[in-house]
């Protein structure tokens, strides 16, 4: 029994890192541009599709595809922000909310539909096997280990960027106090654009890993976004270690629910957790008490 539990928790933690990566992108975009990107999940799936295409098209190793996916989606994010979000960014908060939701929802619909049209609505996955590592009676699937390793490296690099580079510090400044950042001369539109690029690239990277572990279909986008939202709220709005912890909690909970109640109850887990955290501690595990 304990062995099962440890195994499930381990799998959950490894999965949670992947979720946290995607949630992180969403969180950082919201902090800087005040836009909750409903199309985030769809961008993740696009990253997965690109990885899939490279794997089946030219036989690229799935882990190497990330070297292509990240730069491509950095640019995609830049363009998205510049073309679609910039025109609405100057509106009042309430109008921005409505406009950003409709806009990103619309983009999400377009992406889902076009990718279904281009590649078919059937599930896709990359079947790539590596021997697993067993440590102390617990099986560590190698793929998940490698993914976790990459995610940790990526997170450390990103953290370094946020703490030490000008743009990274600008991003944090804007998240903490938008007007204050403007006063000290931060170019908010430009930083927004870069942030969107980073967030999108993060999502796409998560996507290219996602497709190694799960089957994807074009209509998973919005449910995924909702799950990452649940993770952000769980961890606390505006807290990055919170997003990591939230991701792990959701990952572990999903594994446990899937094991004890059956696979089809895995999906609603994140939502149920969201409702619980809203009832018990609305600011999330690491959040500040105010919104």
């Amino acid at each position, binding site marked *: 029994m304990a062995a099962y539990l440890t195994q499930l928790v381990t799998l959950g933690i490894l999965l949670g890192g992947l979720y946290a990566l995607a949630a992180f992108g969403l969180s950082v975009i*919201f902090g800087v541009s005040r*836009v*909750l990107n*409903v199309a985030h999940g769809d961008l993740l799936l696009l990253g997965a599709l690109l990885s899939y295409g490279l794997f089946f098209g030219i036989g690229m190793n799935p882990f190497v595809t990330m070297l292509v996916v990240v730069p491509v989606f950095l640019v995609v994010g830049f363009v998205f922000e510049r073309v*679609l979000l910039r*025109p*609405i960014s100057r*509106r009042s*908060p*309430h*109008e921005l*909310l*409505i*406009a*950003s*939701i*409709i*806009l990103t*929802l*619309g*983009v*999400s*619909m*377009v*992406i*889902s*539909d*076009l990718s*279904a*049209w281009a590649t078919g609505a059937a599930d896709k996955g990359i079947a790539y096997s590596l021997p697993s590592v067993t440590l102390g009676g617990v099986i560590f699937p190698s793929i998940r280990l490698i993914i976790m390793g990459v995610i940790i490296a990526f997170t450390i690099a990103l953290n370094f960027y946020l703490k030490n580079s000008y743009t990274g510090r600008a991003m944090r400044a804007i998240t903490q106090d938008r007007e204050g950042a403007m006063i000290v001369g931060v170019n908010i539109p430009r930083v927004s654009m870069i942030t969107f690029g980073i967030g999108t690239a993060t999502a796409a990277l998560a996507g290219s890993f996602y497709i190694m572990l799960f089957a994807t279909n074009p*209509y998973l986008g*919005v*449910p995924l*976004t*909702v799950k990452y*939202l*649940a993770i952000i*709220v769980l961890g606390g*709005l505006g807290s990055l270690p919170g997003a990591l912890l939230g991701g792990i909690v959701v990952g572990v909970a999903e594994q446990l629910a899937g094991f004890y109640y059956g696979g*089809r*109850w895995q*999906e*609603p887990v*994140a*939502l*149920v957790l*969201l*409702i619980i955290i*809203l*009832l018990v501690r*609305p600011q999330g595990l690491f959040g500040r008490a105010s*919104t």
Partner: protein
Amino acid sequence: MKKLAMLVGALIVAYLAALPMVSGNTFLIASILIAFMYTVLAQSYDIVGGHLGYMNLGHVSFFGLGAYVFSIFILRGYAPITAAVAALAAAVCLALVMSYPFFRLRGAYFALATFGVLLLFHRVAFNLEDLTMGTAGISLPPVDSLVQAYYLGLALALITLATSLAIARSRFGLALRTIREDEEVAETFGINSYYYKAAALTISGVFPALMGCIFVWWQKYIHPDSAFGLEIALFPIAMAMLGGTGAVFGPLVGALFLTAVEDLIWVNVQVEYGKLTAYGIVLVLVAIAMPHGMIRTRWLRRPLRALGLEDYAI
């Protein structure tokens, strides 16, 4: 409202009421019934989405819940009236249960979290097979009910429109709009925002639940996708946005326009993909160019003023 507008309105309602008796065109009657359905859904969405300013993307959960509760009760042999009352009660319960946790969120977080509720219902409808028949859906005994459903739909649509109007003109509506503009300031004015938000959500949930009952009464079949699916979820919101969110009859305009587009264009163009893209592009354009909706555009000002309806386009 000027007398002309009232006369035109009365004529339209009379025409709609007489239609099933003079025309045997079931396609037309069904299309108008669908128009009633979307009107009810879009207008009731806007009570919370437009007047209160909280975008409840999961609004259709009330519709699906009402439809399923109604079906389950009918299947177990209860009378339709009892089933409808049960559906109503379920919707009220849902609204009250949702209010406590969800109104702690604001803006986009609220929007996505409520959408999550819808997804949850979708999953649960599939998973609880003993209760909901899962993927097979619930089938009810065949009874020719199109005309009945039509008149019920007409009545419900009129009641929903009247409620929207009543809310817009009342102190309740004023409280909602104040909360929308600045919730903290509203609280300092003595508006108990939690109470008003919960009340608005409950009112907005009643109409879709009843419409769900009417829908099942007509179709005699319900399935998780038709109750909680993406299409039924997003259309009313797209209609409210396109028509004019926050305006009294904005969603009505959007519902009528998009239903017309559906009937005229999409009936003839049967594509497997592309429809969602078209709606998505429309949403993007609305967000960038026309976020206030069709009812507030400049070229509608004069006709509305001539009819004395400009107050309903604020």
